[in-house]
């Protein structure tokens, strides 16, 4: 049985006071992982001995020190595009098979400093490029609610691990929805923070201007706790903001009065699965009864968001992934000359979807195409940002489905990248605008989870979490899947 219960705060409290030891918590986690991991395949590198050693060290700390740790002994799963000194980091790619980073990502360090114990790295679409976790060279991850379906992506391993109960907390990254869509598909909570809220130092960059690290957890409270720990300025990331971090947990249950929520028509129209729409609208109906007012709004540039995203993200990716050249680390396919070495290494080291995006991005930035593609996409990005600014003049938050569909069947989109790209239709706008967005479970349809997404103004994570808490109260959640 999973050792994970629904309150990380409670678990950490028991470790702090010595009611349970970190060792027993970590050990039972691994025991459970051994049992369910073969069915879910959420995880990549893990080292039980090392994790146990860290748990032992934590248990040996004097009570006075242990009591200060917000995540004392809490097992944590880390998406495998966050580098770690203790465990290999592959980004789901052959080109980094067996790669060991000389340093640890800032977010992981912060979590560890608060007593979290990294039990495993989690599976992902290669370099974060995908919406199903099928594009991992280490094989796909299964949705714990239905093994024949995808867990979403690219943080599918993190989402599935939390939903399966392998760990109560996971770190993911979100470039176009990679935390929120898998959180929705796996029936858990995930937040993409405001751009600059969380350090990207040690996150293997996919699209630097869109990437943010964020937490995935079973409840809003757990999510808030991990977000609290990883937020704040990092001198090693020039794009991380010097903004003070509010106390998310303390705010959580403050009542929300007179909340005005914008319901953009563009997110409830064509392309959104009728069942998904029904579940989400049902939640909105219940929130109305709680006194939340719903305002229909227009966000006219939404229709261009996916196109702009699939120009900008690959453009940045083509540049960010250039460092994987076989010279200093990772895979090197030897050749008689330099150019061939580059070509062979990158052709053999990167999967189809990654090469597709690198080629696309290279094209987008090429002389003669830059203005037509990159510059125009940046204009769309500015317009989308303006859509949100206008919306927030009228409403406090915007609500949408987290994904346009229910978790789809494994392999069903393998040959249709365009259809796959449309999975991001609800989520990419928040990345393009740099805004925080939270996905919380909205309910179930045919036994499959549906998520509802809340997008707020910059630095409104506290408000999003409070709304998420409210949604938790009005949504009836079934028991976690028995694996």
């Amino acid at each position, binding site marked *: 049985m999973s050792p994970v219960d629904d309150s990380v705060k409670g678990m950490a409290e028991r470790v702090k006071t010595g009611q349970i030891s970190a060792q027993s918590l970590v050990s039972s986690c691994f025991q459970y992982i051994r049992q369910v991991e073969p069915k879910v395949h959420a995880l990549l590198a893990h080292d039980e001995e090392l994790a146990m050693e860290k748990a032992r060290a934590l248990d040996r700390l004097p009570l006075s020190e242990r009591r200060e740790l917000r995540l004392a002994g809490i097992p944590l799963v880390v998406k495998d595009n*966050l580098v770690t000194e203790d465990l290999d980091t592959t980004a789901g790619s052959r080109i980094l098979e067996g790669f060991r980073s000389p340093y640890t990502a800032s977010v992981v360090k912060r979590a560890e400093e608060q007593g979290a114990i990294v039990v495993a790295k989690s599976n992902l679409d290669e370099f974060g490029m995908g919406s199903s976790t099928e594009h991992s060279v280490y094989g796909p991850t299964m949705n714990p609610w239905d093994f024949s379906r995808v867990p979403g992506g690219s943080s599918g391993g993190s989402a599935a691990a939390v939903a399966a109960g392998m760990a109560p907390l996971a770190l993911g990254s979100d470039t176009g929805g990679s935390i929120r869509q898998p959180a929705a598909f796996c029936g858990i909570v995930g937040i993409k923070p405001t751009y600059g809220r969380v350090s990207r130092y*040690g996150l293997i960059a996919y699209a*630097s201007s869109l990437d943010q690290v964020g937490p995935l957890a079973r409840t809003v409270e757990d999510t808030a706790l991990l977000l609290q720990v990883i937020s704040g300025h990092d001198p090693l990331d020039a*794009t991380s903001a010097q903004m003070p971090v509010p106390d998310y947990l303390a705010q959580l249950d403050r009542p929300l009065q007179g909340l005005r929520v914008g319901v953009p028509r563009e997110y409830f129209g064509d392309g959104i699965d009728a069942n998904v729409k029904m579940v989400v609208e049902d939640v909105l109906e219940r929130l109305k009864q709680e006194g939340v007012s719903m305002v229909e709004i227009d966000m006219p540039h939404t229709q261009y968001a996916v196109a702009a995203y699939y120009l900008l993200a690959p453009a940045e990716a083509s540049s960010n992934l250039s460092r994987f*050249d076989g010279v200093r680390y990772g895979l090197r396919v030897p050749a008689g000359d330099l150019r061939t070495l580059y070509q062979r290494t990158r052709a053999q080291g990167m999967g189809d979807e990654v090469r597709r995006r690198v080629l696309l991005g290279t094209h987008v930035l090429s*002389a003669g195409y830059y203005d037509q593609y990159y510059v125009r996409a940046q204009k769309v990005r500015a317009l989308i940002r303006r859509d949100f600014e206008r919306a927030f003049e009228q409403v406090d938050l915007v609500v949408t489905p987290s994904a346009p569909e229910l978790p789809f069947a494994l392999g069903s989109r393998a040959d249709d990248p365009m259809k796959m790209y449309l999975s991001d239709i609800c989520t990419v706008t928040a990345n393009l605008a740099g805004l925080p967005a939270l996905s919380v479970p909205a309910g179930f349809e045919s036994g499959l989870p549906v998520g509802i997404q809340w997008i707020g103004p910059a630095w409104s994570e506290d408000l999003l979490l409070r709304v998420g808490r409210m949604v938790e109260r009005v949504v009836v959640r079934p028991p976690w899947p028995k694996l």
Partner: protein
Amino acid sequence: MPYQVVVGLEVHVELKTKTKLFCQCANAFGSEPNTHTCPVCLAMPGALPVLNQAAVELAVKAGIALQCTIHCHSKFDRKQYFYPDLPKAYQISQYDLPFAEWGHVNIVADGQRKQVRIRRIHMEEDAGKLNHLGQSLEQSEGSLVDLNRAGVPLIEIVSEPDMTSADEARRYLTELRAVLSYLDVSDLRMEEGSMRCDANVSLKPEDYTGSLEDLPRVEVKNVNSIRNVGRAIEYEIERQSERLAQGQRIIKETRGFDDARGRTYSQRSKEEANDYRYFPEPDLPPLVLDSSWLARLQAALPMLPDAWRERLESLGLSANEIEVLVQDPSQIQFLQEAMEMTTEVRALTRWMLADMLRLLNERGLSFAQSPVRPAQLVELLNFIADGRISGRMAKEILENMFVSGESAGQLVDRLGMAQISDDAVLRGQVAEVIAEHGKVVDDYHSGKERALGFLVGQVMKRTRGQASPEVVNRLLKEALGSSVS
């Protein structure tokens, strides 16, 4: 057909910061390979650049000193190409919004003052180095990558194509280096690569009316001294004129310079040039400079060569003296300190450029390293001005100051070198010399000017050089005058 020579220069200058442009690694030349590296400059996965503010300060100083407009808003871009010395496979540089534009450097060419305009200055990071194994590049058995230099801060100073000869190019570089040397922003050592120059050379037919940009341009890369930049340009002018004379066209290309043979050679044709796919660097926020910070930086800038030229000219120095002085900021620094203690600037510069310079050169020292400090030189010169010692004694004393480190005052005492300028003491000597050399006295009276010099020399000899020549001169004239009447 006659042609006009068109030369533009791109100069890379490494900034003298403690650490690299985007990480905390030491910015140091000549260490063991790959000892100044970290995840950032090795481009390890997940590493991010953070801008070194000290580098910004040095770069902006250079921009102000080169009379540029400094932009308070600029940004960084990625210049992308694959090469093993470029770990990220892109160089962080500034593309369409450099931090500085529209400056200039004044040169004197053919006796005329001329302005060479600077189009732009941008900040960027240096690449690493490849060390090829084996006898030659063609027969190389392998290459070793050294990334100590990767990420070292650079500024690239791009001139307008305003120079019309190799000589102007040399003068531009000399003046550019002089200006930068006053700021202490770089070592400016071309042989170590802390200053590097690429020369763009083209020939413009006299009747050509199109844009200079459209002329087929040859870029000679990485020439390692100012002299060689001149040689490379001269060679290119000759080579291109010959081709044109033979009816051949000039190919737009990049060439190297072979120092030993004094020739340029083709490296690659620009017609197959890279597409660098520049785009804004998303890992760095735009570079925003505070205008009051800029004003403070401007105010704190030292006096630059042109201002010194004006000042020294107004003090009556010759053009030659001025040029020698302003080329070396340590001389100017020395002069400036000394000028705070004396008004005898002419004497000061004469002594600096003659005896001081000789004594320093003999020891391989610069003015900055001189054991004789400005105050000590001024003390010595004051002794001459007071008549306590003669110029010749001063030379001897200065040599001794270099050797023993004693002050002029100490040496005058120790060597017993005080000058005799007491009329009463010298009158006796003068009388004796006149008495002994009746024939010479006659010569003097018959109008032979040289006779007086001989008599002065005799008095000097009797006093072992300590007599004041001026006083002896006066006393002799008095004595001889009276003996006639």
